[in-house]
């Protein structure tokens, strides 16, 4: 299998089988109640702190489909952000292998005044694709998104479903090796949900790693082989589906 290795981080501790290794990862947020201002910072000096993740150790193998569950505020989204490299852990180490695409917000990164094609280039480059790669994939992206003649129209004329399909198409055609889903596919219509699920299953057979966050336990149970439970920033459960008790 050909590996895309353009933006990978150091992976000296990774063996060939693992996609993600988190070692002692913690994340601290300072709680700011209002807009942060310089004056406030000087006067108050200290801040309230909140640990979103506390000493998380986790290894995820290539091709694994992992479900992440836990109550609100248990650190699920923070964990995804740290894996994606959007957020930096306060302490600990993150090693990932292969390109990561987060489907956390599919509508982000589009400009309403630009056309569909112009937005494909913009969004694709944010996801780390080069201009040449986007050119090659342009027709597949357009046909998967199924937005027909609207591709030359500015994005503000799109329905929200069309924007969503375009966002998903770009993400899926950006050659990810790891996909992070944050209830992203629970939006959109039935056809779109089925189509995207099929696409993820297909890619999953090619050793695509999927991490899936949802509150819908049944959905997680149906589509993931490993289920990790988070609570208050700690992993409190990690079981294969066959051993998992609902």
């Amino acid at each position, binding site marked *: 299998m050909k590996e895309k290795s353009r933006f990978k981080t150091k992976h000296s501790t990774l063996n060939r089988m693992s996609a993600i290794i988190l070692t002692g990862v913690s994340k601290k947020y300072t709680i700011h109640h209002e807009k942060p201002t310089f004056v406030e910072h000087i006067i108050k000096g200290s801040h309230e702190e909140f640990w979103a993740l506390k000493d998380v150790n986790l290894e995820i193998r290539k091709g694994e489909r992992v479900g992440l569950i836990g109550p609100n505020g248990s650190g699920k989204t923070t964990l995804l952000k740290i894996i994606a490299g959007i957020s930096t852990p306060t302490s600990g180490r993150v090693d990932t292998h292969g390109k990561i695409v987060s489907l*956390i917000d599919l509508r982000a990164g589009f400009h309403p*005044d630009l056309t569909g094609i*112009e937005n494909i280039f*913009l969004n694709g480059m944010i996801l780390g694709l*080069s201009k040449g790669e986007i050119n090659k994939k342009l027709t597949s992206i357009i046909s998967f998104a199924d937005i027909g003649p609207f591709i030359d129209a500015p994005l503000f004329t799109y329905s929200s479903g069309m924007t969503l399909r375009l966002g998903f198409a770009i993400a899926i055609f950006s050659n990810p090796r790891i996909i992070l889903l944050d209830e992203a596919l629970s939006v959109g219509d039935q056809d779109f949900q089925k189509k995207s699920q099929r696409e993820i299953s297909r890619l999953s057979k090619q050793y695509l790693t999927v991490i899936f966050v949802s509150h819908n336990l049944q959905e997680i149970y149906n589509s993931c082989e490993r289920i990790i439970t988070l609570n208050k920033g700690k992993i409190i459960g990690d079981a294969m589906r066959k051993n998992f008790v609902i």
Partner: protein
Amino acid sequence: MNNLNKKYLKYYFDFLWTMTEKELKARYKHTVFGFLWVVVNPLLQMIVIGFVFRLFIKEPIANYYAYLFSGLLVWNFFSLSLTKATPSIVYERSLIKKAKFPNAVIPLSIILSNAVNLIIALFLLGIPTAVVGLLTIWRLPQLIASLILLICFTCGLSLLTSALNVRYRDVSFFVQALLIIWFYATPIVYSISVIPYNLMWFWRMNPMTSIIQLYQYIFADAAPPGLGMLTINLVIMSFISMLGFWVFHKENKYFDDWV
């Protein structure tokens, strides 16, 4: 490894250019005059300021309109870039939260799109000044050097303010206030020769003094900045720019926590 860096560099500049195109396209979409606005605004400003200051300034400056126009174009580029780039990271929070990508392209693309405007405007200014014989072909290398200097300094300062603005939102208000004072503290509408010698140190500390003087020298045949002034200004500019790159590089990892 070398190959990987080259590929990344190509990606970086392609990305920067795509974002710049986005800025330019989005700015002039749905406008009737489009790029014409680049010239119309400073032209109006020049006519008004030129008219008003003629009444106040005792010692007339030679080629005053060319002097004023070159200074105003450069100042407008600097001031518009800084006001737009400073809050840019906060405005583009949806991008920051979407993926890991070189965040610096957000403020840099704003500056680059303004630079495209500036170059067009300077070209349009070049035609009449060349016709009356103020601008000659020999000034071209100096013009290119001045452009590089101006763009680099604007980039460095904008990286500094945009990174700090993520944590301290006061920065963008501070920049707006500073720019108003800065405009009058820079010899754009007046000549530096009216400054008393004992206050000169203040103008020497202002890096925009010699930048503006360079353009006035090129387009209006005004006196070029003195060597001492240029050296001090260059040192200050390099210091601010390096500080900007360093702060942005350091803060960049924590943007997501604050937007």
